[in-house]
């Protein structure tokens, strides 16, 4: 067994008791071995610190989203009061709402939209922020994907980015931000119109907003081809 093998087993936590004895002995007697061990051990600590920084920036992102969500819930409370008043004056159009399992409907229809716009190849060593954003998206590191999309300079922004950022927010179940961005895709008439309408319908279902969901589904069926059949099925279940 070479010294390199011993180091390898040490760092992959796979030293046998016998190898550990040799390892300890070498650390005491072989200066070169000790130097290499210290170098790799320092690298381990450096990588841990790097990973901690990455996690810290994710946590800061969660915190930002949480504050934004609280603001959304605060506004939503006023809407809830208005809706309650509407019910009190005798509007019971929402009767069927209590008979529908909205979470199940959402879960059975939601699938994450694949990356169809940016090709990540193994041989591509270019480290553009967009590439990093899509790598994070594909590996479901949604908070990193959002941070990377945000970091892309305005001059390099592409029309499809809002859609994928909205997808990343959906992945984090941050429906307020996802809805805002899908709506932006529709308002700016960017690509993914049908897709955004579909996801807006799903968000409305998740929020138990039956009327809104129906509006989006009807719009999707009459104007787009994307998920048209699924939209018809969903509409039937809601009606």
């Amino acid at each position, binding site marked *: 067994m070479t010294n390199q093998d011993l180091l390898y087993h040490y760092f*992959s936590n796979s030293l046998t008791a016998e190898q550990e004895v040799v390892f300890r002995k070498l650390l005491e007697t072989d200066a070169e071995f000790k130097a290499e061990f210290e170098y790799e051990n*320092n690298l381990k600590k450096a990588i841990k610190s790097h*990973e*901690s920084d990455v996690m810290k920036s994710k*946590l800061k992102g969660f*915190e930002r989203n*949480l504050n934004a969500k609280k603001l959304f819930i605060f506004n939503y409370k006023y809407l809830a009061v208005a809706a309650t008043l509407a019910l009190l004056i005798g509007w019971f159009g929402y009767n069927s709402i209590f008979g529908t399992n909205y979470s199940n409907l959402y879960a059975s229809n939601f699938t994450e939209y694949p990356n169809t716009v940016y090709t990540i190849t193994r041989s591509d*060593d270019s480290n553009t922020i967009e590439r990093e954003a899509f790598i994070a998206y594909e590996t*479901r590191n949604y908070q990193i994907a959002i941070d990377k999309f945000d970091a892309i300079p305005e001059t390099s922004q592409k029309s499809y980015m809002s859609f994928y950022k909205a997808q990343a927010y959906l992945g984090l179940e941050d429906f307020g931000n996802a809805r805002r961005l899908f709506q932006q895709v529709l308002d700016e008439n960017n690509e993914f119109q049908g897709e955004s309408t579909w996801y807006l319908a799903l968000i409305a279902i998740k929020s138990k907003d039956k009327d809104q969901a129906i509006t989006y589904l009807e719009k999707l069926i009459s104007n787009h081809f994307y998920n048209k059949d699924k939209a018809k099925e969903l509409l039937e279940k809601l009606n």
Partner: protein
Amino acid sequence: MESVQENITVEDLKEGSDLLFKRIYEDNRDKFINFARKYRLSEDDTIDVYQDAYIIFYNNVMQGKVEVFTSSISTYLFSIGKYLIFDKMKKNNKTINPDFDLSLIRERDTLVDASFDLDQDELTTEQVLLKKHFSTLGKKCQELLTLFYYRGYTIKDIILASDYTSENVVKSAKSRCMKTLKERINSNSND
């Protein structure tokens, strides 16, 4: 939500799902702020401590320091957080009340898991240099070295977790990455 958390295993967390980490963060955040209130930290300080505790928890899970959860994730987070709060207060010379001896609390055995690594030491100059140049490596090198040194993966584990096809390919890729890192550090020290 509590029941969701109780069902989460170490293996689930090791898959690194952002959504799962976000849920755990959010589920425990307000409880932690309430818990820390009695120590009269500002909310910003409390959030800082909570995030530091969360990172320590995360590192320990990812580095394989904990194999199974012997308590709920909340208990882990609170236990580490409490340790950090007392540490912070001790450093700031704050007291909770005059009869309270902080040195009693700082003992490691107050933690849920005595094998937990609470290392928050400052990096040495060499480690800072390594970190700086590590972050300039290509994504593939960063991922490979992270799996090996941070996650403690064997070469076989790396093949399973990535698209490398054989042990030799992993070994030579790792050697190339280490060589590039060394070259960058050397060229930095020659500047």
